[in-house]
C-alpha cells in the first residue's frame, strides 16, 4: 500500500505548486517511506508516497503508458496482475516495469472507463488521461484502501488521508456536525461524509470522473445478493468444495510479493483458516503475529498457541496493557482522523508495529469473514428477533437471546418484559431492512445525550433515515439475513473496521494488510447462496467451517466465538491517568470546544471514578467524548503545530 494525493484544476489554470504536492505526500510518509514521486502538468498534479512491495527497483510512481499520455498514481495491490499483464502483452502493450501498477494504464487503454472490473485487488487509483483531459478517481469494491476529496476555489483536491488534503487547504477545517451525529449512531459517518465539513470519501466501488470542470460519480461494483428463490442451486457438498477452492486461490494470489509476507493469528476461526491455507498451499515460510491482553477476559493466547503448535509457525506476540491504551490513544486518533467508540484500533496499531519491527511489510488477515460468511452476533440476534416477531407473545422465543447475552438471566416470565424493552424494538415491523441493527444503533445513539445545546442546533435527528436513503431499492426484496449482511458491509465494515481499525492502524507502521475473505469472487459466491448455509440455525459461518474443518483442530473450528475486544474505560483511570485526558475532559476544555455538555460529562466521569460504569453505553460515550476532544485538539485547534509533532 502507499499514499496518493493530487490536485486538478476545475475552472481556471491556477498554478499547481510542486512544493504543495510534495508536502501532501510527505505528511503521509508512514504510508510510503520508500520513496516519493510527482507528476505536474499544471492542469493536474499527482503525488505518490511509496511502500515498495512488488518490483522494488522499477515500480516507482507515477507510471505512464507507452505514449506518456496516460499517468497513474495508485495505492494498493492488483493481485491478478500477472494474468492481466500476460493478456495485455498479447494484445500488444509494451511494459517498462514489472510492477502491478503498470497494468492499470494499459488496461485503461484497452477497456476505457470499465477497466476496473478486471482488477482483483485493493486499490485507490488516480488516473490522468492527458489527451482527453480527464481524471478518474477510483476506490476498490469494499473500501480496503481510503480515498478522500474536496472541492474548493475551482480545484478538486484528493488524497489517501484527510490530513494530506488539509495540508493543501492551508486553513483550519471544521466539524461536520451531522457526521458526528451519524458516527454516534453507526460508529462511522454515512458515506460519503467524513468528520470534516466539505471533505468526502469516494465511496467503495465508486469512481469519480473529472472532465471539463465537472465531477461525476458512478458505481462500478456493489454488494448484490441473490433474492429468495434465485439462490445458487447446488448441493451443500458442492458449495463446500467451491468455497474451499475459492479461498485457496484468494489466499495464494495474496501471497504474491517481492518482500516476505506474514499473517495475523488471533486464535479465532478466520485467521486460523488463512494461516492454515498459507501453511498448506503457500510457497512461503509461515510467519505469524498476534496480540495478547493483560486482561484475561480479552486474551486468546491459548487458542493462538494451539494453532502455532498445529502449524509449526514461527510466531511473535506482543502484550497489550491498560497503559498502552491510554498512552497510544492520541496518536491513534491522528491516524483514524475520526472519533472512535471503542479502543479496539489501538492494539491493532501495536500489532502492526510488531510486524514492522520484525522486518515485514505485508500481512494476510481474516478480516471480512464475519461479514461475507455470516459470523456476527448481530446476525444471530436478527434471526432470533425475526423468529420472535412471528409470535411476539411467546416467552420462549426471546429467551434464545440468552445464548448471546448469558448475563441476561431473566428466566422468569417477568424477564420477557425486560427482553421486550431491550430487544423488542420494531417487533411489529420485521421487514425493515435495519431490523437486526436497530437495538445496537439505539444503544449507540445514547452517546448523543451528552451533546451540548449548541451541538444540537440545526442537527436533524434522522441518522437512520439518512443511512437508509443510501440503500438501493433491491435491498428490500432480500432475505432478512442478507439485508443485515448488506448493512454491516456498507456501514461498520467499510466505515470503521477497514479504515479506523484496518488501513489506518496498518499503514501507521507502513504495513499492508491483505484480506482473502474480501476477494470479490468469494463475496460474489457467498452472496449468491442461500443464507441458511452461512448460519445454520444459530451456527455461525457454517459453510466456512465445513469447508475448512479438514485443516484445523476441532477445538478451533467448534470454539465459542469471542468478539475481538480491547480494554476500554479502565485504561484511562489508573494511578497514571495521562495529563491529556485530564485536560481534554476538564470543564473548561469541554466548554471551549463546545461539542458536549460540561455538567453531564462531569457526571459520567464521576460515575466511572466510582466504579459504577459497567455498561456498553457508558463505555462508548466515554471513549466517544474523549476521542472527539482529541480529534478537535489535533485537527482543529492545533493542526499546524501537530503536523510537525505527529509526522
Amino acid at each position, binding site marked *: 500500500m502507499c499514499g496518493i494525493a493530487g490536485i486538478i484544476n476545475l475552472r481556471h489554470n491556477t498554478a499547481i505548486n510542486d512544493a504543495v504536492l510534495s508536502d501532501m505526500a510527505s505528511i503521509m510518509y508512514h504510508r510510503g517511506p520508500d520513496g516519493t514521486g510527482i507528476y505536474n502538468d499544471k492542469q493536474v498534479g499527482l503525488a505518490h508516497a511509496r511502500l515498495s512491495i512488488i518490483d522494488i527497483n522499477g515500480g516507482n510512481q507515477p507510471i505512464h503508458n507507452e505514449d506518456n499520455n496516460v499517468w497513474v498514481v495508485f495505492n494498493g495491490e492488483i493481485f491478478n496482475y500477472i494474468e492481466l499483464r500476460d493478456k495485455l502483452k498479447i494484445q500488444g502493450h509494451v511494459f517498462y516495469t514489472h510492477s502491478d501498477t503498470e497494468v492499470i494504464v494499459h488496461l485503461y487503454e484497452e477497456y476505457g472507463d470499465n477497466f476496473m472490473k478486471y482488477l482483483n485487488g485493493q486499490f485507490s487509483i488516480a488516473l490522468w488521461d492527458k489527451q482527453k483531459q480527464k481524471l478518474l478517481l477510483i476506490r476498490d469494491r469494499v473500501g480496503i484502501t481510503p480515498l478522500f476529496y474536496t472541492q474548493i476555489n475551482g480545484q478538486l483536491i484528493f488524497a489517501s488521508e484527510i490530513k494530506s488534503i488539509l495540508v493543501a487547504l492551508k486553513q483550519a477545517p471544521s466539524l461536520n456536525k451531522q457526521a458526528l451525529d451519524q458516527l454516534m449512531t453507526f460508529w462511522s459517518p454515512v458515506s460519503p461524509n467524513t468528520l470534516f465539513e466539505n471533505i468526502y470519501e469516494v465511496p467503495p466501488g465508486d469512481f469519480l470522473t473529472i472532465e471539463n470542470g465537472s465531477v461525476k460519480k458512478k458505481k462500478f461494483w456493489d454488494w448484490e445478493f441473490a433474492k429468495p428463490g434465485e439462490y445458487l442451486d447446488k448441493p451443500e457438498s458442492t458449495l463446500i468444495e467451491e468455497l474451499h477452492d475459492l479461498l485457496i486461490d484468494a489466499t495464494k494470489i495474496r501471497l504474491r510479493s517481492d518482500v516476505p509476507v506474514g499473517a495475523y493469528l488471533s486464535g479465532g476461526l478466520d485467521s486460523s483458516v488463512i494461516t492454515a491455507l498459507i501453511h498448506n498451499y503457500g510457497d512461503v515460510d509461515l510467519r505469524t503475529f498476534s496480540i495478547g491482553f493483560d486482561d484475561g477476559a480479552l486474551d486468546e493466547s491459548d487458542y493462538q498457541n494451539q494453532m502455532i503448535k498445529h502449524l509449526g509457525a514461527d510466531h511473535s506476540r506482543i502484550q497489550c496493557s491498560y497503559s498502552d491504551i491510554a498512552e497510544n490513544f492520541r496518536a491513534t486518533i491522528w491516524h483514524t482522523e475520526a472519533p472512535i467508540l471503542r479502543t479496539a484500533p489501538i492494539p491493532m496499531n501495536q500489532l502492526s508495529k510488531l510486524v514492522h519491527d520484525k522486518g515485514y511489510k505485508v500481512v494476510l488477515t481474516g478480516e471480512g469473514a464475519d461479514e461475507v460468511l455470516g459470523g456476527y452476533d448481530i446476525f444471530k440476534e436478527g434471526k432470533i428477533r425475526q423468529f420472535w416477531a412471528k409470535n411476539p407473545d411467546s416467552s420462549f422465543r426471546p429467551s434464545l437471546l440468552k445464548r448471546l447475552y448469558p*448475563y441476561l438471566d431473566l428466566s422468569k416470565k*417477568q424477564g420477557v*418484559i*425486560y427482553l421486550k424493552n431491550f*430487544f423488542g424494538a420494531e417487533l411489529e415491523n420485521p421487514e425493515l431492512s435495519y431490523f437486526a441493527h436497530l437495538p445496537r444503533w439505539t444503544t449507540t445513539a445514547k452517546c448523543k445525550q451528552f451533546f451540548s445545546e449548541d451541538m444540537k442546533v440545526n442537527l436533524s435527528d434522522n441518522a437512520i433515515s439518512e443511512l437508509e436513503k443510501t440503500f438501493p431499492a433491491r435491498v428490500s426484496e432480500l432475505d432478512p439475513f442478507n439485508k443485515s449482511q448488506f448493512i454491516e458491509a456498507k456501514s461498520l465494515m467499510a466505515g470503521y473496521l477497514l479504515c479506523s481499525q484496518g488501513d489506518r492502524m496498518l499503514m501507521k507502521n507502513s504495513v499492508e494488510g491483505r484480506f482473502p475473505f474480501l476477494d470479490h469472487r468469494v463475496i460474489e459466491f457467498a452472496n449468491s447462496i442461500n443464507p441458511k448455509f452461512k448460519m445454520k440455525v444459530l451456527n455461525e459461518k457454517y459453510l466456512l467451517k465445513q469447508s475448512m474443518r479438514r485443516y484445523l483442530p476441532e477445538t478451533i473450528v467448534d470454539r465459542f466465538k469471542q468478539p475481538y475486544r480491547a480494554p476500554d474505560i479502565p485504561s484511562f483511570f489508573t494511578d497514571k491517568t495521562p495529563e491529556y485526558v485530564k485536560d481534554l475532559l476538564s470543564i473548561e476544555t469541554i466548554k471551549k470546544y463546545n461539542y458536549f455538555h460540561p455538567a453531564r460529562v462531569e*457526571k*459520567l466521569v464521576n460515575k466511572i471514578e466510582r466504579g*459504577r460504569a*459497567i*455498561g456498553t453505553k457508558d463505555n462508548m460515550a466515554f471513549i466517544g467524548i474523549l476521542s472527539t476532544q482529541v480529534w478537535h485538539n489535533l485537527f482543529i485547534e492545533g493542526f499546524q503545530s501537530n503536523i510537525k509533532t505527529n509526522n
Partner: protein
Amino acid sequence: MSTRDTVRKYILENYLFSDDQSALADDDSFLDKGIIDSTGILEVIYFLEDDFGITVEDDEMMPENLDSVNNIVSFIEKKQAQ
C-alpha cells in the same frame, strides 16, 4: 437523605447525567423512557445491594420492583422490613 432522594439522585446522576429534578418523575417507567438498558439493570441491582445492603433475588428482578423511583423505594422498604 431519604431513601427516595437517594434513589432519585442516583438515577438522575447515573442515567440522565443531570441535576434537573424535572427530568424525572417518581412514577416514570425507566423502560418506557429508555433510561435503562440491558446492562443498566445490573447497575441498578449493584446500587441497591451496595448502598442499601439488600440482596436482590433472581425472581425479584422484575419491573414491579425496579422500573421507577416509586417501585424501587417500595421494594427497598419491603426488603428492609424483612
